[in-house]
């Protein structure tokens, strides 16, 4: 996983999602990476050091090729010495890894029982919260609107939210405006388009006119990905099909009752629909955009400011849990830990299929895709900018949006940005990376041009 890799190794790619050109195929590349990742993480301190150093290097060399050229020419140790002259890496690492006094030990974190929240949930039974000195109660919540309300009410100290939600709450779209932050992304990929079994011969999206789809929430990656997918196939998501918000637990029941023809929803709903012989998986969301963010761990900026020690410990627990979850060998153990009624409350085999990526697709085949769901906590600001362009595209926010500002304010690109300021340095331009969605490249520095390039859009 890129965030924890050794940043001083020139052969390593630091930004995820772009092929480094050193391997013959994407699969070989992934395999090689997996092997390398396993040998590099000896201890927790090394992990934090890599996080800090990684951020610094990423900030200094936004283009990965430049970083690699630099490292190849001077070597890792010289690079480390050179950078340490300007930025004391060891101090920053110490400050980050240092246990600041915890102001509030007993915390309540809300979650929705879907596999996106795996790091938040598994940190409880697998002991990550207690390891960092916190006594956290993870509380199952009825729906996204309730989780939003309870976090705004301060009934929860932090919560599992959809990535667009902290942005929407900060902008005041669909809720009272309150400054929110998303310092960590819970998972990438992990969703799918599932259709009712009666449509198994209707796999071409062009024949989907008049269909009724469900998404978990209006401000969700699911909504934006579904709309993007439909628009790319020439369907207008507002006039040619019906998209409605349905809470994830009710999606399978609605599919069975024929209320909806399909949904783009979070796991375990997709796999559960297959398990109960109600639907089949048409497309994994990673085939729309590989590496898309889904859910985030969100806290109000007030919490971050008034309880920084608690916040740092909480974030560390989540980062630890995410690192543990990103290793494929741990997935089975995690599936067993989060299956009971106290957590996700689903049969273990359903969760195993999702987390290990070996699954039944509903049409008779067993498919294998290890990256079906993955865990990478870094909140790239380019993610936030893409989300904002789509919110504007579909009319959820109007007027001029200062994309980069909002993204920077909400998607806290790691604690080290703050730490850099504390040490007296001006942080460089926010770490962003360009990626492509369904083959179309997104350049985060040109959001307006990207928005204008769509035929089907409601942006004025």
């Amino acid at each position, binding site marked *: 996983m890129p965030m924890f890799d050794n940043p001083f190794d020139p052969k390593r790619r630091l930004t995820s999602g772009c092929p480094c050109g050193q391997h013959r195929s994407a699969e070989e590349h992934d395999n090689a990476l997996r092997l390398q990742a396993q040998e590099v993480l000896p201890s927790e301190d090394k992990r934090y050091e890599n996080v800090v150093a990684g951020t610094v290097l990423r900030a200094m060399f936004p283009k990965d090729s430049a970083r690699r050229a630099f490292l190849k020419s001077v070597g890792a140790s010289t690079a480390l010495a050179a950078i340490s002259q300007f930025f004391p890496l060891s101090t920053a690492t110490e400050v980050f890894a240092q246990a600041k006094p915890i102001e509030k030990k007993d915390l309540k974190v809300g979650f929705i*029982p879907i596999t996106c929240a795996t790091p938040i949930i598994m940190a409880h039974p697998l002991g990550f919260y207690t390891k960092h000195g916190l006594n956290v*109660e*993870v*509380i*199952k*919540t*009825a*729906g996204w*609107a*309730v989780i939003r*309300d*309870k976090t705004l*009410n301060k*009934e929860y100290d932090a919560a599992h939210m959809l990535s667009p939600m902290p942005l929407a709450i900060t902008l005041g779209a669909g809720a009272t405006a309150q400054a929110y932050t998303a310092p960590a992304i819970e998972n990438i990929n992990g969703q799918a388009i599932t259709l009712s079994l009666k449509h198994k011969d209707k796999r071409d999206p062009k024949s989907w006119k008049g269909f009724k789809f469900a998404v978990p929430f209006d401000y969700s990656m699911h909504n934006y990905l579904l709309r993007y997918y439909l628009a790319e196939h020439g369907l207008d998501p507002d006039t040619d099909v019906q998209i409605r918000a349905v809470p994830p*637990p*009710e999606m*399978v*029941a609605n599919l*069975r009752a024929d209320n909806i023809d399909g949904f783009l929803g979070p796991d375990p709903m997709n796999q*559960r629909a*297959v*398990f*109960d*012989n109600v639907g089949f998986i048409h497309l994994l969301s990673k085939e729309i955009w590989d590496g898309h963010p889904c859910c985030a761990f969100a806290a109000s900026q007030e919490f971050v400011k008034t309880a920084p020690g608690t916040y740092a410990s909480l974030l560390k627990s989540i980062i630890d849990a995410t690192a543990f979850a990103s290793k494929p060998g741990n997935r089975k153990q995690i599936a067993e830990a989060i299956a*009971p*009624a*106290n*957590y996700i*409350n*689903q*049969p273990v*085999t359903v969760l195993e*299929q999702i987390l290990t990526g070996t*699954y*039944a697709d509903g049409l*008779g*085949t*067993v498919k294998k895709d290890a990256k079906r769901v993955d865990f990478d906590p870094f909140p790239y600001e380019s993610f936030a900018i893409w989300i904002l362009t789509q919110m504007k595209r579909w009319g959820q926010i109007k007027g001029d949006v200062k994309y980069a500002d909002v993204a920077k304010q909400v998607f806290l690109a790691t604690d080290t940005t703050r730490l850099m300021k504390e040490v007296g340095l001006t942080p460089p331009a926010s770490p962003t990376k360009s990626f492509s969605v369904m083959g179309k490249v997104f350049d985060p520095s040109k959001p307006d041009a990207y928005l204008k390039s769509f035929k089907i859009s409601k942006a004025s």
Partner: protein
Amino acid sequence: MAINNAMSISFRASIVSILILVIFLVAWHIATSGTGAVQQMDPEYAKLMGLNATQGKSAMPGPLQVGATLWQHLTNPFYDNGPNDKGLGIQLAYSIARVGMGYLLAVLVAIPLGFLIGMSQLMSRALDPFIQVLKPISPLAWMPLALYTIKDSSLSAIFVIFICSVWPMLINTAFGVASVRKEWLNVARTLEVGAFKRAFTVILPAAAPTILTGMRISIGIAWLVIVAAEMLVGGTGIGYFVWNEWNNLSITNVINAILVIGIVGMILDQILARAAKLVTYPE
């Protein structure tokens, strides 16, 4: 002879009830024990699929399954595995506590207000439009407003119970007070009884049967509302239990919960029915 007839009626009624139950259970068992079509699939695929696909088992559970799970719940009602998984007994206790508080609040508001409306034509006419407009509003419609203003999910649930169960009591109290027999009021006036004493010794006992009927209707509504409110808000309670099991598409547990909800509702109703019997008087 009369006693014999009475006994044979209730005896015969219970026989018919049991017969209906047995027929229903048998029909349910037959309906859910059949197997549907099973497609051919290779064994590795079959391992990953549920029983509906591999064995054609019906998605709806049969009475034996439901009975077995119900027994499990009843024999271990107070387990606590964490904030999201508690025994049936604990969840019921939470729900009953919430209902109790909301209902008590409603009683404290409805009966005095009902007296006022019953005794004064002016107040009755003046408050009538408000009552008529607020009465039909569903608890689910109140919930978002309550959460938004009260900002606390437990208090919001109690408020919603209050606002929905206050109307039957209010209207019945007003009606009961307004229809106290004029002769009794005249006697009270002749005896020069003070207003307060008159309210407590003449009007209250006279209106008591009607008031208790109103209370009985209200407790039914309050119990109905708490299940809906807890499904929306979550956390603890029998409504949350239903929602949690719904997440897992465990129809067996949902049916169990429904049965338990029905039985507790019946018990609450019976308590008030007994209370009503205590205050009835022959006309």
